[in-house]
């Protein structure tokens, strides 16, 4: 082979070279950049990864993050909001924490019932030191800007701050006003005794339309727990477990039994009443505010109204179920201070990102936690009269303590089969609740923490 021939590019070499180059380019294209490219001499921007559920990103956290990125564009940091699937991200996050390889700096949502669990898992870090070093304008006044002091209390565990509130959930009674008028009522009566009389009249008035007067949700804290808060000053015992062994609890479930027996509600509707509510086949339900929002989306604000639940005695203060969902900074977060700053900006009392986010809470889930946001979105408007009444009940209601999350899944898992048997008339209340207690205690005995 001559020197000339050796120097010539063969077809095979050409193909090898181009294939290699194409592969290298493809690999380069797949690489996730950790920092945005900047011209030589310009400061580089560090990406800070934060997560939330898609629903809450849609609700406003995505827009709020974009607004906050605009505000801090010269800071050298940029927030990247990653949307994760509820429940599926937790094992991944725990692995990252335990491997010392945490990608995310903050999380935009921790359900009230899971916050205690997250602390036990080691997912959440205390915020006190970060709060002390934060330069956010409202960081020092945050505690005073919550609508009520028990909102701040619900962010604390063993004397430390772990969470930044991301929405308040105050449970309400949502009802079809047009149906109530058919039974001769303008609104919900003040006591349960009067309410029960009304259910009887509703049943008669709506019999031809196949409308069930009342629907319970099969989630212990929604309907049953909310009704129970009106029977006792504090629904939790000294260990923060729901008092399912109290006489008031028995009284509460007995009231429901009467409604089942009288046909004011039924076990079929209990399984999934939202479909019946949407189709106009339910007159009243106790639930979060989303029950009312769903109803209004179909039947209009003129027909769907809301209020706090009735009381055992008219002289009792207004009480209802309240819990607080929150955001947090991950243990081992790569940028903990920036993680907290993002939470403070998006979930704070004022500013463009916070204004955007808190407006979203009233469209999907929850309500504001700060006085400023309450006044802006609820207090000074006429669009949510039921929420004004609900907020007024906060001081006399007990906000779900973080430690209640320890017992919630156990109670939810064990109580329903026995309640359904009791309401169906198969067992007495005493036997049903004794079995529930035995099963709940057996599960609690298995806990080692």
């Amino acid at each position, binding site marked *: 082979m001559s020197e000339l021939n050796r120097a010539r590019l063969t077809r095979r070499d050409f193909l090898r070279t181009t294939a290699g180059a194409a592969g290298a380019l493809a690999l380069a294209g797949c690489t996730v950049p950790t920092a945005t490219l900047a011209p030589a001499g310009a400061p580089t921007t560090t990406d800070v990864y934060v997560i939330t559920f898609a629903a809450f990103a849609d609700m406003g956290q995505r827009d709020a993050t974009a607004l906050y990125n605009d505000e801090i564009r010269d800071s050298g940091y940029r927030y990247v909001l990653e949307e994760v699937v509820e*429940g599926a991200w937790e094992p991944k996050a725990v692995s990252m924490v335990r491997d010392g390889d945490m990608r995310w700096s903050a999380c935009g949502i921790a359900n009230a019932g899971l916050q205690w669990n997250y602390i036990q898992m080691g997912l959440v870090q205390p915020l006190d030191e970060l709060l002390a070093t934060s330069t956010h304008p409202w960081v020092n006044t945050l505690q005073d800007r919550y609508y009520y002091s028990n909102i701040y209390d619900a962010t604390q565990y063993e004397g430390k701050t772990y969470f930044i509130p991301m929405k308040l959930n105050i449970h309400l009674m949502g009802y079809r006003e047009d149906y109530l008028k058919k039974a001769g009522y303008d609104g919900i009566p003040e006591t349960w005794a009067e309410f029960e009389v009304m259910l009887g009249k509703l049943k008669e008035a709506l019999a031809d339309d196949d409308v069930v007067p009342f629907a319970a949700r099969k989630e212990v804290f929604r309907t049953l727990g909310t009704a129970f808060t009106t029977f006792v000053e504090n629904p939790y015992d000294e260990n923060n477990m729901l008092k399912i062994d109290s006489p008031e609890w028995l009284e509460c479930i007995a009231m429901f039994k009467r409604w089942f027996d009288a046909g004011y509600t039924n076990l079929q509707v209990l399984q999934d009443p939202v479909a019946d509510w949407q189709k106009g086949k339910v007159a009243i339900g106790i639930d979060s505010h989303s029950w009312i929002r769903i109803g209004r989306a179909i039947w209009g604000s003129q027909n769907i109204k809301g209020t706090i639940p009735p009381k055992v005695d008219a002289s009792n203060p207004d009480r209802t179920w309240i819990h607080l969902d929150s955001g947090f900074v991950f243990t081992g977060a790569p940028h903990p201070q920036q993680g907290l700053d993002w939470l403070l900006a998006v979930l704070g009392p004022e500013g463009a990102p916070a204004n955007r986010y808190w407006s979203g809470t009233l469209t999907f889930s929850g309500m504001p936690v700060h006085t400023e946001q309450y006044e802006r979105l609820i207090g000074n408007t006429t669009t949510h009269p039921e929420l004004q009444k609900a907020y007024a009940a906060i001081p006399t209601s007990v906000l779900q303590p973080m430690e209640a999350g320890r017992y919630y899944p156990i109670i939810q898992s064990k109580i329903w*089969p026995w309640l359904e048997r009791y309401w169906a008339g198969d067992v007495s209340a005493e036997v049903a609740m004794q079995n529930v207690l035995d099963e709940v205690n057996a599960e609690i005995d298995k*806990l*080692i923490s």
Partner: protein
Amino acid sequence: MRGVAGNLSGAPERTPSGGVWQAARRGWRSRWGMAMLGYLFILPAMALYLTFSAYPLVRGVMIAFSDYRFLIPNHQPFNGINNFVEMWNDRVFWESFRRSLHYTVIYTPLNVGLGLLIALLISKIRHPLESAVYRVIAYLPVVLPIAVALLLWKQLLHPQFGYINYFLREYMGIARPPAWLADPYWVVPTMAVAAVWKHVGQNILLFLIGLYNINTEYYEAAAIDGAGQWRQFTDITLPLLRPTFTIVLVLTAGVLGTAEESLILFGVTQAGPENAGMLVGRYAYEIAFFVGERRWGYAAAINLAMGLVSMMLAAIVFRLARGERME
């Protein structure tokens, strides 16, 4: 090597291409090279299998013999057979297991029988395009996401507004049709039927492959001998479909530990009326991801036990199939 063995004097033997050792090395290299090439070809599949099947399986078995609690950092002490002892004494486990057996007893014959019936009907269609259309229709539910499929069923089965009860009331004259998923008595059969609709397409396809592989001359010869349709089915079709039955039944044996139907139809926080949707797979899910300290050890033990039961069922099917072959 053959050159060395044939050289009785022990002196190195020269070959046209070089020395003995060179030849041996070349041969070894060649075999080694071939072997490596073979390993290279199976490497991707092996890597996927080891990563996503073998490792999780071994890890699962290890977890089943520990008190792994996900909520408590670094808590996974070996606890011997304690999980299995607890399972033996766990009333909820046995109730769930009974429901799973009930589910399997409905699901398996329906899935296999319906699959065979529909495959037979499709195989009788001679027009290729028409039969292709039916095959696609039959297989469509399999490719539909299971959440979509089951939520579709949930709407159909709504006691008051579902089309099924509307049909039963309006056209069949049944004044009080069952409440299906809202009635503890009907929950397991309803879940099984919905799951059969979702999965039967796979069996139809397997049976069709089996049916298309049967030589038509057998039927022609049998028809000449006077065998009717039923006799042809029992004496030709069924025996020649035996390998397909084996595959179908073995694949179905894993249904004992299913959890997804219950989780999708009732949600994560409740298991249907009076917990009637609490199948054993769901019970393991609850223990691992919902209740208490997320006891992955106990949940893994339950799943391991279910896996062993499924393997035993599969072994019985294989044994019966082999017995038939030997006859």
